[in-house]
């Protein structure tokens, strides 16, 4: 796949009279066309500054930002503004214009691009259709729910056919089920329109749900990058381990060294775990579970610990495979 964004030695230092703060330091990152690239880190790690450096909302102190082969740092203001039209962005707090209707919010970027009124309106309506808000054209943002606001923001960000969509904690202000629906919409946009997506988040769940690649940022530097499946299965750095298996606390390693992370991405009606224990006759230890009970069953994830016995492990794995429940294996050594 062709690369679309390349960050080279990107550094941003904030300086005022009293303090010098290094927000990001020597960041090298390549994002390829079609990626849904998750950049995850704890708050204060520098991820917000990083994403703002991609479209130069923050001017990097040093380093280069290549977008489709052009170094944005070297562009003149007017050229930069042109380029920004090709880089959509959505935010944690949606940042809609409260005094404009939904339709006029989506029209705004088209006004900037000097698109003829009729064409612009057609385009805006089409986009609001895509995000499922065709009945809200004349509503004002204050009349919408958080999820609907983010949908308007997505429509607005897509107006000028960008090749990249930057998402700055786009789901952090939303409840879990709304988060899921917004993530599904982003995935759809990625697949149907071929738009590369960069997601900044502190929630592992977001990365797990839609990203194909992930970069882990901590203390201003990138600690680890790779395919989500690989990084998750075998995290190398302490911070990665911490983010992927958070707040497990002390685990009794005597019981067994194998951990399974079960993901119920489809809704499950039967009491799977109870059934698994009965069928396999393996006593598993539930370490953590975050299961949401919905109208059509439950979704979420669960981490279980298995006894140190190959037979039992195989039985459980078989059971899960036949039930079509996805799981990832790791061991207690991953925990620090």
């Amino acid at each position, binding site marked *: 796949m062709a690369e679309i964004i390349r960050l080279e030695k990107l550094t941003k230092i904030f300086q005022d009279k009293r303090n010098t703060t290094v927000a990001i330091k020597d960041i090298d990152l390549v994002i390829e066309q079609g990626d849904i690239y998750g950049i995850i880190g704890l708050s204060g790690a520098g991820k917000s500054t990083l994403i703002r450096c991609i479209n130069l909302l923050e001017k990097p102190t040093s380093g280069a930002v290549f977008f489709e082969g052009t170094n944005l740092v070297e562009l003149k203001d007017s050229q930069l503004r042109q380029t920004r039209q090709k880089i959509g962005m959505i*935010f944690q707090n949606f940042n809609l*214009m*409260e005094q404009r209707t939904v339709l006029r919010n989506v029209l705004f970027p088209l006004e900037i691009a000097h698109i003829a009124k009729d064409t612009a309106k057609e385009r805006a309506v089409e986009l609001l259709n895509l995000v499922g808000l065709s009945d809200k054209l004349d509503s004002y943002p204050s009349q919408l729910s958080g999820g609907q606001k983010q949908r308007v923001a997505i429509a607005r960000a897509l107006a000028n056919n960008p090749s990249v969509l*930057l998402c700055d904690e786009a789901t952090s202000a939303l409840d879990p089920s709304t988060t899921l629906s917004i993530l599904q919409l982003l995935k759809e946009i990625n697949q149907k329109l071929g738009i590369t997506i960069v997601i900044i988040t502190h929630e592992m769940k977001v990365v797990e749900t839609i990203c194909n690649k992930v970069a882990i940022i901590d203390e201003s530097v990138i600690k680890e990058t790779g395919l989500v499946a690989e990084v998750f299965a075998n995290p190398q750095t302490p911070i990665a381990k911490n983010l992927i298996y958070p707040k497990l606390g002390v685990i009794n390693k005597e019981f067994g060294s194998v951990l399974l992370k079960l993901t119920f991405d489809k809704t499950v009606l039967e009491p799977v775990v109870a059934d698994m224990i009965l069928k396999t006759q393996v006593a598993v230890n539930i370490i953590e579970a975050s299961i949401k009970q919905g109208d059509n069953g439950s979704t979420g994830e669960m981490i279980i610990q298995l006894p140190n016995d190959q037979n039992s492990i195989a039985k459980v794995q078989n059971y899960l495979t036949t039930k079509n429940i996805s799981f990832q294996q790791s061991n207690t050594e991953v925990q620090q």
Partner: protein
Amino acid sequence: MISLISATFPFTYYLEQTLITLKIVGISTLLSYVLGIPLGILLNVTDKNGLYKCRPVNAILGAIINILRSAPFIILLVTLLPAIRKLVGTSVGDVPFTVGLVIAATPFVARMVESSLKEIDYGVVEASLAMGASKMRTIFTVILPEIRSSLIVGATISFATILGYTAMAGTIGAEGLGNTAYTYGYISSNPEVTIICLVLLIVIVQIFQEVGMRIAKKLDHRKKGE
């Protein structure tokens, strides 16, 4: 009430004075806004988190505004009037007073506009820039429309303040209800004239405030539907 009015002055006299007051206040408010909006914007954008951060401009402009704002209106007016009269070349009529009012009110308006501008959520500004809008476009098509209700509320407050200034200027000769109250009410010991003028001034302020607030509310889509 009618008989009371006709006791000293006919009804038409008060109407005439009311219209003169409204004219002076209207023109002064308008001119103060013509000057105050750009100055308020300039104060805001040159501030430390502004779009065109520029400390020297901000500090100098801020200092001038603070000095003019600190001077009690009537003292400022009597200090400036001789120079204004020379400048505009007329010693009679409303013109010198209007100029004085504008000089005194513009710094006030600039601060009102500046404080309205602070209401903007920076995220919205950021979103606009991220979409490729220029800073100028962001100021005029995003920030100002977003804070329009606050600007209108500010304008009604400015109107009442300038009305107060005009009434004060009446004591040194500016025409209108303030002058009537002072000359024919206070000096001539005619309390009903003072009271009628007072009531008329209060009614004017109340009408403008009510209308202004209603317009501001109607134009504000932030809270509706909640």
